[in-house]
């Protein structure tokens, strides 16, 4: 019968309309009609979406305890592996071009990530042998221009290990386990650990 399909369609939208009001839901229930889906959107600045723990945005650099105790040794593996090549690293060196060391490790003098190029693929995290780079879930970083404001340097990228623990507890636990295992492996021959050259 012509027209029935049209009316059925109208019934669907009306039901959804009524179902968005609390009183409407009561009415729908009273009439034994299937409930509508209700309001599905969230009012953004007031309520924020709960992201999954694994939610990833842009990478950050992890430090232990103090900001000068970076895990990063400026080995530049992530720089090489980054598909869009948005990471730029220079190792801290003295006048004779010898690597400087802090806490027994080399460290980056410059560590820039151009987040306007970064595509949040997480490959840098996967390839880092030192667990020094992790994915942040801070995503409200909109700026008015895409020049220097979106070029994050070392200071902007630094986050503490506690912060990592806080935003991604499960992942941090796995990472810590790996770090502990690694430390245990390299601990017994104490002098060897010190002489291990930073991965080139």
């Amino acid at each position: 019968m012509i027209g029935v399909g049209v009316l059925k369609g109208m019934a669907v939208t009306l039901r959804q309309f009524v179902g968005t009001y609390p009183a409407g839901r009561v009415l729908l229930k009273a009439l034994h009609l299937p409930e509508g889906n209700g309001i599905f959107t969230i009012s953004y600045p007031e309520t924020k979406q709960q992201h999954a723990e694994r939610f990833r945005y842009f990478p950050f650099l992890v430090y232990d305890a103090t900001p000068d105790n970076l895990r990063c040794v400026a080995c530049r593996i992530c720089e090489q592996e980054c598909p869009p090549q948005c990471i730029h690293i220079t190792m801290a060196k003295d006048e004779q071009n010898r690597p400087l060391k802090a806490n027994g490790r080399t460290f980056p003098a410059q560590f820039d990530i151009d987040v306007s190029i970064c595509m949040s693929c997480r490959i840098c995290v996967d390839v880092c042998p030192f667990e020094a780079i992790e994915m942040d879930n801070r995503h409200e970083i909109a700026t008015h221009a895409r020049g220097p404001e979106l070029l994050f340097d070392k200071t902007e990228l630094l986050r503490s290990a506690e912060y990592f623990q806080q935003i991604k507890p499960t992942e941090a636990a796995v990472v810590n386990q790996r770090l502990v295992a690694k430390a245990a492996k390299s601990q017994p021959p104490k002098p060897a650990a010190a002489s291990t050259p930073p991965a080139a």
Partner: protein
Amino acid sequence: MTNAALKTDLLEVNLGPQHPSTHGVFQMTVVLDGETIVSLKPVLGYLHRNHEQICEDVSYIGCFPYTDRLDYFCAMTNNFGLAVAIEQLGGIEVPERAQYLRVILAELTRLVNHTAVTGFLLNDMGAFGTPLLYAFREREKILDLFEMASGSRMMCNYIRPGGVREDVPDGFVGRAQEIVAAYPRFLDEMETLLTENEIIRQRTQGVGVLPKALAVNAGITGPMLRASGVDYDLRKVDGYGVYPRMRFKVPLGTVGDVYDRYYVRVLEMRESLKILEQALKELPKTGPALSAKGQLIGRSPRTFRPPKGDAYGRIESPKGELGFYLVSDGSPQPYRYHVRAPSFINLTVLEDMCRGQKVADAIIILGSVDIVMGEVDR
């Protein structure tokens, strides 16, 4: 009175590249006689991003985030396709659990894609966004699931050669089962709204018919081919992964018009739900989600140097046969990397379907082809 007597002119109209319903930056140069289409010339390349060339310059793993951006509705199946190709090239085994996870993610992607396409098709028909927003409402739930597993809603970069990047978190299977259980209700609602609607039937039935022979000759794949009545589904033909263990049917259309293409997709979604139910039930509780070799490749991509040779890996993506052709010269980067993009090849018959139809039909025919410009232009 004939047109000759009226001395009417043909009107050439550029639909796109900036047009509300060309699904991105696609241009159709349409020659109209009144409202009837005399000829239609697709103009491509506005979204060309040098995908294949870029991927020849990065490691095999480095290609994956770029494939997310091919067909940005179906990142998971794109990852899947490339992973299959690389596994063939490097002879990598995939653990059982990963096989199941891949099937689950691929079928969820099919739901996402077909739901969204139906919504967009209705928008092309002029609905004021209602079916589209219903579709997006459901799509969001699946995207939440993707975010849970991979950390990203659309640019997943999750399926890897040798399995998936990391195992799914606790609660994933439960959430997926909830969504799968609730989905038929949404499909029923969508069908009440659309399938029997007389306006939609009038608009779509008999419009943009793609004959069986032409579909086969033009290399059309996916729901579009099946809507024309050709039984060809790579999940059955190739039986890759654990698909041979799944019990599902392949819906076939009879006429090959826009309505068939719409309805075949709806039926495919119902079949996908069956696959999902089975796969979620049969998913091995334990076992690695990434093979040892896969883990090694993931941690140091440049150590993966497949032997010289080539491989063509293909899967049934929601849009059709998605193939990746890789040539290796023994270096860490692919020597040649080529994508057989289903939307691009399905688009080739656009003029044949549109000729003689009205200009309003051209839009919905394009909508029913289901293209994503990221994949068409690459």
